[in-house]
């Protein structure tokens, strides 16, 4: 909690949160704020440049780009959040179980995490959508499964730490300080780590969702998404070379805000303390090193950096 409060004091964190609040508002109310119907086609107004009527111009079917951008926020953000939410569910339970349910469970869970970490996002998502049907939920479930090892590791590290703390306490401390240890541990270490992981995972998920919708996975064509807009712009680069920048910048600002927020929380929590002392705090170099990880660059390189600079 103190870490989060300290992070709040950083100006970068406050700006990032303001941006994210705006994105959240657009995600909920973007469709209502749109000046035009995002689906209405006006063949007469095809591929127009920015004007008073269409601040961001129109696309190849004469649809208003601003309206599509606003309306597309919801689907893009909801997708990312669905993916990260399912990742939490799928990661946290085995993470705890792997510490307390014995070696077999632990070994299996770790190998499963290894396995998921080598899966290339898009290839796996295509396979899932191909096998289970082309829908947003299928695609996001696929992403959720692949993001799960992130939470698995965080939870597992935290649980190992707790287990150690319990031993320390059982051997030499009173009951009163057990609560203290638990509280300090959870509030000062686990929560910031989860917050950093989540901010980064949502950012990464937004990028992957953009890739998937760009490929036409997860959404049916007329529905606007940021990635889908990029895909339709691709055919008209000769006429409108600047068009991809509009959804591109929307993605960039959102992901950038999430990354800045993650950095701010991490910096306030003092970097290397995040993971448990027992497990090498290094998803990057640790288990997945045997089998590199699709996810690790989301979180790990920074952690490697932290460790190298502080250690």
């Amino acid at each position, binding site marked *: 909690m103190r870490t989060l409060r300290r992070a709040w004091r950083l100006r970068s964190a406050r700006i990032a949160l303001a941006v994210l609040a705006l994105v959240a508002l657009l995600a909920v109310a973007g469709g209502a704020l749109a000046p035009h119907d995002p689906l209405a086609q006006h063949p007469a107004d095809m591929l127009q440049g920015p004007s008073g009527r269409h601040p961001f111009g129109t696309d190849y079917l004469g649809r208003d780009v601003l309206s599509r951008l606003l309306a597309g926020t919801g689907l893009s953000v909801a997708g990312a959040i669905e993916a990260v939410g399912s990742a939490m569910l799928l990661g946290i339970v085995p993470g705890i179980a792997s510490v307390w349910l014995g070696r077999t469970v632990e070994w299996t869970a770790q190998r499963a995490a290894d396995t998921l970490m080598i899966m290339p996002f898009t290839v796996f998502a295509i396979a899932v959508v*191909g096998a289970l*049907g082309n829908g947003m939920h299928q695609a996001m479930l696929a992403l959720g499964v692949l993001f799960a090892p992130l939470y698995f590791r965080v939870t597992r590290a935290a649980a190992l730490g707790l287990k150690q703390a319990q031993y320390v306490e059982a051997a030499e401390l009173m009951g009163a300080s057990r609560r203290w240890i638990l509280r300090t541990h959870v509030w000062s270490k686990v929560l910031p780590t989860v917050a950093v992981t989540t901010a980064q995972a949502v950012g990464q998920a937004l990028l992957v969702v953009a890739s998937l919708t760009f490929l036409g996975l997860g959404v049916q064509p007329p529905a606007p998404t940021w990635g889908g807009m990029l895909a339709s712009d691709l055919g008209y680069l000769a006429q409108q070379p600047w068009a991809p920048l509009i959804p591109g910048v929307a993605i960039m600002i959102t992901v950038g805000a999430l990354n800045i927020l993650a950095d701010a929380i991490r910096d306030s929590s003092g970097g290397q303390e995040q993971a448990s002392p027992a497990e*090498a705090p290094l998803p990057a170099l*640790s288990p997945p090193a*045997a089998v*590199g990880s699709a996810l690790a660059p989301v979180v790990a390189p920074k952690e490697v950096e932290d460790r190298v600079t502080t250690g």
Partner: protein
Amino acid sequence: MTAPASTSVLPPPRKGAWLIPLARRLGAAPRPLGRVLTTTVTVFLLASLLTFALGALSEANPAAAVLGDLATPADIARMEAQFGLDRPLYAQYLSWLSHAIGGDLGVSWFTGVPVADSVAEALPVDLSIAGLALLLAVFIGGGAGIAAALNNGGRIDRTVTLICSVLATLPPFLIGIVLIVVFAVQLGALPTGGYIPIGENPGQWLRYAILPAFALSLDAAASLARQLRTSLVGALRENYVTGAQMRGFSARRVLFGHVLRNAAGPALSVLGMSVPLILGGAVVTEKIFNLPGIAQLSLQSAEQHDIPVIQGTLLVTICVVLVANIAVNAALAALNPAARRPAGTRTGAGDVTASSGEGGTR
């Protein structure tokens, strides 16, 4: 057997004590190659199980895929028998896996073409582009990382850091689009898309491959540059660098012969981790640049619910990642002798860098 248990003074700590060394051992990197191979095999089996499960969970069946709504129950039963789908799942899995290991990935429900043939046709496209991308990432990211570290705190350093942060917020394919706009549409210097096999005409191949490879490489290059910069800044402070200087070694020899060798470990791990990212990114890049790669194959098969092709492409991609991983681990082991120390004498994952000299004898 009861006696030792009851005489144990502190059962709880003893019971859990293995956790810490185990966790550390599992967490220590790089691992000895033997263990890497064991893990790789396990991961391959689990991944194949997952791949197979996707097919098993699917409601798609060959008759429906081919005939659509016209399929009668009799058609479905006939075609399921033809593809062996009427057998129990474990038998299907075992035969699929054993055939796959032998190089037979089954045949497409649609075209009847062996999946292995389609993959063999598409894979070189991805491998050559991804290989080029990896090479570019090493040069761009390595160069930028080294320059930033030597310029620690200076203008080059800040520029590299800024570019890396910006790249981390961009969807990788956006860079591909920008490259097309600049080099193909505006300058007309390079083709907007298409592909010529490297064996046919290497020069032309490069013309077609350079833009997608460059677009793919930037993400990995940024991670690599960041990691290399940090490791190098740390390594440059080590005494052995002063030591090498005092022996009259030139700045270049000190950097490439000594510092880089110790700082490259974490960077190499990052590079290994970017292999799945590059392969995943290749899917979108293939679409943008219209390359006839494995991703087009899997996208097409996904639309047609052509399960054998879906499974085959996924499994092959996984194998590519695993092979790349073994290579990275072998390189790590070669770079850093500490990895060859018996497990347990290591002080932890921190050993990857220069500090490994400290752990052994003291």
